[in-house]
């Protein structure tokens, strides 16, 4: 497998993606731009989950909670003070990361199914907090969010938010690739393959695990912040296990452990879930069917179709 070959095909894909994204605002309707904005939020969510599950092998099911923390933090700050949105998004990311650190501590004590269910429990508990902390989140009525602002400009439409969403998504993508290529990325993968071996090689496994959670939560927090740029309303209903499952699906169907897979999965499943919204009566049947068929016939995800590398590789 020549590294150069995949590298250049990545370049081509990226260039194509950039081209589409650059041309889009000139022709697309508001709805299409909304969907594209949403897809980029999903892409960042998927990248965050890729870091903790795909790279580090820690099975965490609390992504929607961190997404929610990002949305509420950014949204509330925007509502009260209207700072440049970069600051409010950063605040959301930092708070999500801080909570992620606490959840990362759980990962030190448990693994696999136990970790999955403990983080799942945390996710459900957070949704409960969003629903019941009425003085802050306005509970089950949902919360209106003032348009984000920067330097006197108010982002009131999908079109206005679009360039900022694209830039942030591109930055997060670059960050993910940079992390994967750094020593930290190697440490993540070492922990994924074997705790014991990683420790023997001198990897600080405790620190690495916690940091994976912190990073993943920060990504979800940023995704939440991106969401506030074009959405004006948030309801806790959309921050439950279903959202976590949707993101998990993107990462796994895209191809566990692959950045391209996570992005492709986010685009495809983001579109599928948006399209199926038009056919609510068949939505769940089709969606469930797709999940089962993928796991039966293409368990290593879309990425394995492109590279062919995952075929001969042990999981």
């Amino acid at each position, binding site marked *: 497998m020549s590294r150069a070959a995949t590298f250049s095909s990545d370049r081509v894909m990226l260039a194509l993606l950039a081209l589409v994204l650059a041309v889009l605002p000139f022709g697309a309707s508001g709805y299409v731009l909304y969907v594209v904005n949403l897809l980029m939020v999903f892409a960042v969510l998927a990248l965050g989950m890729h870091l903790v599950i795909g790279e580090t092998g820690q099975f965490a099911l609390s992504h929607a909670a961190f997404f929610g923390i990002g949305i509420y933090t950014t949204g509330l700050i925007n509502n009260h003070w209207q700072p440049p949105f970069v600051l409010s998004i950063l605040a959301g990311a930092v708070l999500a990361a801080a909570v992620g650190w606490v959840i990362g501590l759980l990962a030190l004590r448990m693994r696999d199914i136990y970790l999955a269910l403990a983080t799942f429990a945390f996710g459900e508990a957070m949704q409960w907090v969003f629903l019941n902390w009425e003085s802050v989140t306005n509970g089950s009525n949902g919360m209106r969010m003032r348009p984000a602002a920067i330097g006197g400009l108010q982002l009131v439409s999908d079109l206005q938010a679009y360039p900022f969403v694209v830039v942030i998504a591109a930055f997060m993508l670059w960050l993910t690739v940079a992390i994967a290529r750094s020593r930290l990325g190697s440490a993540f993968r070492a922990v994924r393959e074997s705790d014991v071996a990683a420790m023997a090689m001198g990897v600080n496994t405790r620190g690495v695990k916690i940091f994976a959670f912190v990073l993943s939560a920060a990504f979800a927090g940023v995704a939440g912040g991106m969401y506030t740029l074009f959405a004006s309303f948030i309801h806790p209903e959309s921050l439950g296990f279903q959202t976590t499952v949707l993101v998990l699906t993107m990462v796994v169907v895209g191809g566990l452990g692959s950045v391209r897979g996570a992005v492709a999965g986010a685009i495809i499943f983001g579109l599928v879930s948006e399209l199926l919204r038009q056919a609510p009566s068949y939505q769940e049947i089709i969606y469930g069917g797709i999940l089962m068929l993928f796991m*039966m016939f293409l368990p290593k995800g879309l990425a394995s179709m492109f590279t062919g590398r995952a075929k001969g590789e042990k999981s």
Partner: protein
Amino acid sequence: MSISDIWLFIQQGVLSGLVTGSVYALLAVAIVMVFKTTDVPNFSQGEIFMSAGYVALFLLVVWNWPYWAAALLAIVVTALLAALFQHVVMQRVTASRGAGVQMVIATLGFAYVLKGLVRKTGLGDTPRSLPSLVPQDPITIGQAVLTLLDLAILGAAVVVMLLLWLMFTHTRTGQAMRAVGMNSRGAQIVGIQLSSIRMQVWALAGVVSAISALLITPKILITPDIGHLAILAFAAAIIGGFSSLPGAVVGGFIIGIVENLVGLFISSNAIVVAPFMAIMVVLLARPQGLFGGKLQVKKV
């Protein structure tokens, strides 16, 4: 709150908790036996349980079947459904070297399909109850008030648990299932056919799910979202250690009691979050659950 109030609440909470807990325990047993023999954390457990309730409801309401026939067919259909899923889907996922994540997603897919199918029938549009065989007359135990139905649920659940225990200890099939749970390769070597045992375990889980649905739906309304209840069963299974059947039963009762005590002492609003707090507390203190064995460390 005076001492006598507290004592009354404790009695009521524990007794009501045992009733709902017995159903969580049954579902937790279904989850654990599937996990032990096939390594699949079955995230479609709740929807299998929900579908069973709707099969019974359909036969009773639309086809006007007598209760015993509807109940029986609901049990059979659910067992077949679960076995079919294992045979067609999970077998294939396992064969293509699917790891935990892939299996979880496949079961989630099944859950979505079942929910979608039930919604399509339109029966789920209005929440309903299944008829109760036992009158809902109040009965006082100590100072707590239960209904006759409550006692029937608890009694039936305990009988089912005993039958399962007898099956696992005294029948060849049950022992084969346990053997697969302990060491699937070893079981294969002594002549147990893995794929058929796994199908039987899924079928058995289907039977248990259907019985749970029949037991609890006269007491609570059935909706397509009732599968959410399985989350409590998962909580129970985790507290019990996730690979221990007695642990699952104890966990089920604990969750039921905690839920009811929280409802009485704190607020009914906090009931939803209580099981998750219980999981977190138990796992932080004992990461392998109350009855779980030593944590396994993956070797190189």
